């Protein structure tokens, strides 16, 4: 029989156990239900990690696939100051030469710091992370690891367990590296203004700062979204040693690398242009010199160079003087603009190539102003106006054509609007509507005054004459490819409009061929094996609305072979010394560029062909050579 005492004890035990289980039950409900969200967050914070996977920025290639800009994998070296203890001086002394930073700066960075966040609260984010140096090569990183592993940090003899742990953490984890990439332009300043430049930009994600390369100018900026790619991420659990537990990987989105941009630029032609411009720069010491090479049939830009230039690997060399003047600067074109008025007048049938004009021996009074020619001319044909570049002749042709048609042709050639080249900073130039013209405009515009054009607009207009009168849109990007070279997007040449008929175009080419003859203004641009068609320009510079004596923009724009044009080349000098006429200073540069391009592109000559061997004789000679019976 159970006595009362036993029952009482059993009851007490039951109450005690019930209370204990009730307490445990409450705790269970508290942990699993009431505080579920909070504790779940805590658990995730302890074990779950998010890794940002940076995409690789696409490369920029020339038309043959040569690298113009590329991304190189590098390391960003960081430190965990909380693991460095009191060894800042030793670490700074050892790593400063390898990282290329002053020892004192490095020493300061290695101390744990407390900073304030946006709300003004004290935070200790810098306790575990400080960036020491960017763009560190793999080899340098390996040297850093070796150096850290070799250092004894002044601990002699047998270290205690705590010291061993400290040393292990210091050597293995205190200095660590994050994968990064660096933008490299392997050809230095080649095509610098076209490529532009890039810089690293920090992106803040969950209290962690990541760096990403962003384009700042040129193609790097214009096609930044295509080049950048899309970042990936990984959400996963880690163990106590921060090693990833692959089985507990929740999300894994691979990054999508940026696309490669294949340009129409040919690096060899670009180099030809830049070396020739550099030579001319030395000889004539202009403020700037530009060169553009276009394939007229497609509008492809094979080369586009401006000097002075810069090295995009060192953005500190960039100044306003190194801007891409081909598209950002406007100038009065001078006589090169005569192609607009003459081709327009020929196209309208207002004049014929052999019509004559009295060039008034260099002085022509019109609308209260006196127009001058560089050299006095008497009677000149329309062709002669181009050959001798007579301002008065061009003005008279312009007057015959009329204001409206002159404006229409200028607009049709693309003046007054952007060409649409995919580069930032292109300006549209100035072509006033007819209602804003003064009385003298109709005489001034034909000689290239009273309008402002970009160098690219002018060469595209000349390229239209080299392309049966069809104006093309300048084409700079040929295609976009993925990492494996598969074409993602292909761009085709775009015709803008036919400005003049094919018959007019042929007449214009005949007239332009005479410019490089001894009677023309640019005999120095004539090539030995090719017939060249082109036009010179010498425009007085305007400063504060006034023409300045002694300051000129000299230019020569031409194409060859004249009857089957393969390339159209523009050379423009801003304030050249040692001569200032376009034909005199730019003609020889054109010739040099053209001859080297012809050699490189293997363009068949169309004049002064060397004596060709008789094919029959060649065959016989080959047979004789191959006959084993012959000695």
């Amino acid at each position: 029989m159970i006595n009362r005492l036993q029952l009482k004890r059993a009851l007490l035990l039951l109450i005690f156990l019930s209370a204990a289980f009730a307490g445990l039950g409450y705790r269970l409900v508290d942990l699993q239900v009431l505080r579920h969200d909070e504790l779940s967050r805590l658990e995730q914070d302890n074990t779950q990690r998010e890794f940002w996977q940076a995409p690789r920025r696409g490369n920029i290639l020339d038309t043959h696939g040569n690298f113009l800009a590329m991304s190189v994998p590098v390391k960003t070296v960081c430190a965990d100051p909380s693991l460095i203890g009191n060894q800042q001086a030793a670490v700074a002394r050892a790593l400063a030469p390898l990282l290329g930073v002053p020892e004192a700066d490095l020493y300061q960075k290695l101390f744990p710091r407390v900073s304030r966040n946006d709300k003004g609260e004290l935070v200790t984010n810098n306790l575990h992370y400080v960036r020491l140096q960017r763009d560190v090569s793999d080899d340098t990183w390996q040297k850093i690891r070796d150096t850290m592993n070799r250092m004894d940090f002044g601990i002699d003899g047998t270290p205690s367990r705590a010291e061993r742990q400290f040393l292990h953490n210091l050597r293995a984890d205190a200095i660590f590296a994050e994968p990064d990439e660096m933008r490299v332009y392997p050809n230095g300043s080649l095509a610098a203004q076209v490529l532009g430049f890039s810089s690293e930009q920090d992106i803040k994600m969950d209290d962690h700062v990541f760096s990403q390369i962003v384009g700042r100018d040129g193609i790097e900026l214009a096609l930044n979204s295509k080049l950048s790619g899309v970042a990936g991420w990984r959400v996963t659990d880690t163990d106590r040693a921060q090693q990833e537990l692959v089985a507990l990987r929740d999300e894994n989105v691979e990054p999508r690398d940026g696309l490669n941009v294949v340009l129409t630029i040919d690096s060899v032609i670009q180099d030809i242009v830049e070396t020739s411009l550099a030579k001319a720069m030395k000889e004539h010491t202009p403020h700037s010199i530009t060169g553009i090479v276009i394939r007229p049939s497609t509008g492809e830009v094979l080369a586009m160079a401006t000097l002075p230039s810069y090295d995009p690997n060192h953005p500190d060399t960039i100044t306003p003087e190194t801007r891409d003047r081909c598209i950002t600067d406007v100038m009065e074109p001078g006589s090169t603009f005569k192609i607009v008025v003459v081709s327009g007048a020929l196209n309208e049938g207002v004049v014929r190539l052999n019509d004559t004009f009295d060039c008034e021996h260099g002085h022509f009074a019109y609308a209260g102003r006196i127009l001058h020619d560089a050299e006095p001319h008497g009677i000149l044909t329309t062709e002669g106006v181009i050959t001798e570049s007579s301002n008065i002749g061009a003005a008279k042709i312009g007057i015959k054509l009329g204001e409206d048609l002159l404006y229409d042709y200028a607009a049709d050639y693309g003046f007054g609007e952007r060409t649409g080249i995919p580069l930032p900073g292109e300006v549209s130039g100035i072509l006033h509507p007819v209602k804003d013209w003064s009385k003298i405009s109709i005489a001034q515009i034909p000689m290239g005054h009273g309008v402002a054009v970009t160098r690219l607009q002018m060469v595209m207009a000349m390229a239209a004459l080299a392309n049966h009168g069809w104006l093309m849109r300048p084409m700079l990007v040929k295609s976009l490819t993925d990492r494996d070279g598969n074409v993602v997007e292909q761009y085709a040449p775009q015709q803008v409009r036919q400005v003049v008929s094919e018959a007019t175009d042929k007449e214009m080419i005949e007239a332009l061929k005479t410019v490089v003859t001894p009677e023309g203004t640019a005999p120095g641009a004539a090539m030995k094996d090719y017939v060249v068609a082109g036009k010179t320009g010498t425009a007085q510079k305007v400063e504060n609305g006034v023409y300045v004596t002694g300051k000129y923009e000299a230019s020569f724009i031409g194409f060859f072979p004249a009857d089957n044009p393969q390339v159209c080349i523009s050379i423009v000098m801003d304030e050249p010394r040692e001569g200032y006429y376009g034909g005199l200073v730019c003609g020889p540069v054109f010739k040099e560029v053209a001859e080297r391009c012809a050699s490189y592109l293997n363009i068949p000559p169309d004049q002064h062909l060397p004596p060709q061997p008789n094919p029959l004789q060649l065959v016989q000679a080959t047979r004789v050579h191959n006959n084993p019976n012959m000695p």
Partner: protein
Amino acid sequence: MKKSQSSAIRFGPVLKVFFLCFLIAGSAVGYVWQKSQIFQLGREIRQREIQLSQLASENQKLTDQLAILRSPMVLDQRERQLNLGLAPAQPGQVFRLPEPVLAPPNAVPARQLAQRQEAVPLTQ
């Protein structure tokens, strides 16, 4: 008889219990082994991923290096360094063999013409 039967060892239930215990223990060990394998293979996957990433990076680096070394600019610089005296041929130095002129169709004998009927007509 009944007594002797009850004292004898009955192997059936023992085997059943033994089998049940073995099953439970085996399942537990298997579960632990499987978990261990998952983490072990996870580690291997991670190591292989790192190795793959390193190899891909190395491959990319070498591909880039090769492309740079083969670029015309670098070849030109190298040629200058080695002073090989190489230069592109000038247009005047290139001999272009004129295309052979085809004989007019009426000059071709009928037999040969018949043989060529299947051929694609040549144009200049």
